[in-house]
């Protein structure tokens, strides 16, 4: 008689005692990401104008302890500039994404609950939106609205609702076909009552995760539009504009002007990704058993 040593599982459980449980890990990631993003958004008010005034004596310095992101051709601190730009981009992105989420959930709810021709029209609009490259659509709308901050917000808001609308529509259809909703219908409950008691509780988590996962796309597209020059005006230095300006100074070898603000943008986008994914793990572990 030999006992089979369950080696691999034992090693795993020993490891688990040393590190945090998955739940704690998830909660920590959510907390840290939120803190980081909040820090960037609020940095404008915390650091104020420090480092934004041109000091010609310290032009074009590479990254150092005093200036972690280096300084630009006017001697301005790139970290301050990047934080200001990022904060602005985040706020614009958040505004646009929130509007987009509102459009997406309203149309998704409408398509799912009303069905019939409303559903057909909304599905068709979604299809038309998917038939154009996203960036071309963004440029077209931003251009038509007349560019500027309004242009970016409208363009981003009008083009990011489609996938969320699809998710919400599918969720509504699924809940609608469930037994308890069917029963409520037969008990003569009004559609509003059903929406409030059965739909909303199921859709809120989806909406929350969908909204947070919208942010990174919205911010990336806001940055792209500003970079091209169709977005925020050059006088409001959003992150995309800082990067576009750096293009003019690249051939001179001031690499940090292009690299460092981009790193900040990448980190912000990743923070939103992590936040959304960990939140989804917490709310709905089945979709992400890992």
């Amino acid at each position, binding site marked *: 008689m030999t006992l089979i040593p369950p080696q691999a599982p034992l090693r795993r459980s020993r490891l688990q005692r040393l590190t945090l449980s998955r*739940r704690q890990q998830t909660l920590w990631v959510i907390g840290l990401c939120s803190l980081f993003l909040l820090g960037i958004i609020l940095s404008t008010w915390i650091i104020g104008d420090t480092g934004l005034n041109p000091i010609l004596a310290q032009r074009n310095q590479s990254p150092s302890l005093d200036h972690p992101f280096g300084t630009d051709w006017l001697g301005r601190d790139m970290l301050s500039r990047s934080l200001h730009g990022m904060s602005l981009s985040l706020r614009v992105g958040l505004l646009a994404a929130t509007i987009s989420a509102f459009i997406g959930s309203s149309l998704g709810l409408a398509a799912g609950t009303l069905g019939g021709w409303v559903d057909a029209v909304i599905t068709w609009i979604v299809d038309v939106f998917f038939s154009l490259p996203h960036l071309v659509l963004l440029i077209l709308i931003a251009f038509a609205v007349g560019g500027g901050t309004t242009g970016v917000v409208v363009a981003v808001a009008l083009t990011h609702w489609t996938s969320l609308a699809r998710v919400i529509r599918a969720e509504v259809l699924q809940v609608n076909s469930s037994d308890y909703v069917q029963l409520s219908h037969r008990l003569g409950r009004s559609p509003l009552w059903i929406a409030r008691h059965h739909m909303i509780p199921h859709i809120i988590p989806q909406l929350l995760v969908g909204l947070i996962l919208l942010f990174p796309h919205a911010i990336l597209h806001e940055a792209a539009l500003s970079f091209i020059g169709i977005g925020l005006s050059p006088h409001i230095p959003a992150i995309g504009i800082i990067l576009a300006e750096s293009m003019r100074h690249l051939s001179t070898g001031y690499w940090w002007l292009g690299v460092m603000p981009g790193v900040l943008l990448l980190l912000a986008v990743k923070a939103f990704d992590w936040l959304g994914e960990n939140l989804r793990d917490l709310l709905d*572990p089945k979709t992400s058993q890992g």
Partner: protein
Amino acid sequence: MLSISNLSITFTQYNQGLRRKHLHVITDLSLDVQAGEVVAVVGSSGSGKSLLAHTLLGILPTNAEYTGTLLFQGQPLTQKRCERLRGRAIALVPQSVAYLDPLMKVGHQVQRVAQLNGVSPAAARTLTHQTFQRYDLATNTQRRYPFQLSGGMARRVLVSTAVVTQADLVIADEPTPGLHPDVVREALTHLRELAEAGRGVILITHDIEAALQIADRIAVFYAGTTVEIAAAQDFSTGRLRHPYTQALWRSLPKNDFIPLPGNQPNPEQLPEGCLFSDRCPWVTPECTANRPALRQINNGWVRCIHA
């Protein structure tokens, strides 16, 4: 040839909010199989039948942990040895065509099994051809995709995958559900033939009547444990030892047709004592205190203190 004692399997899962939970899917399971015999493993779904097959083949999911003793041909069956033996010494006849690659022609798939047994490609082709002929499968069947097979053809192709191996132990997982009675009889005959050829066969099924047609012995599973191992003739002669086996026998249409009320216990919260205690007509306070051990009575085994 095969001896399993006190096998227990636990699954770890995460539920909402990412809290960990453990599922005890198999508890103290014991079974042995000799060469040349058909042992039927009978139990309702969720009794751990298929998991037993997966354990023997070393294909349990990664979130499963197991303890207990597995001996195959006198040697402990470790994960390493499983990986070496599976497909060669131990073969599986799966439930349905869902276990065949949907995008690969079936002849090619059977041939691949033979090649994995160390047969040359040319010999594998001949072997496949012979096996298909033996089971009355037309030559063009080899060029079909799994979705193009009828129920009976699918069964014969699936058995072919085991026949082309030299496996000493063949595990047939639920080979009969949803099939025409003639096809069922044919499928069972094929399994019996494998045993006649000197192989050990484990027939996993929830269909007692099918099992009784070909099995030498029958092991009854309940909630992941063996409650009884009886010779096939014990059923018709009324010498069954365990109350669950007796209830199963009575629930057959040809007998009293009385179903047993209640359900198997939840693997998340197994009862302290005997796993069958909450549905047992013979239950006494001793039953709920301790898990009964497997005892030998009348050349059979039973896990009940009242038998």
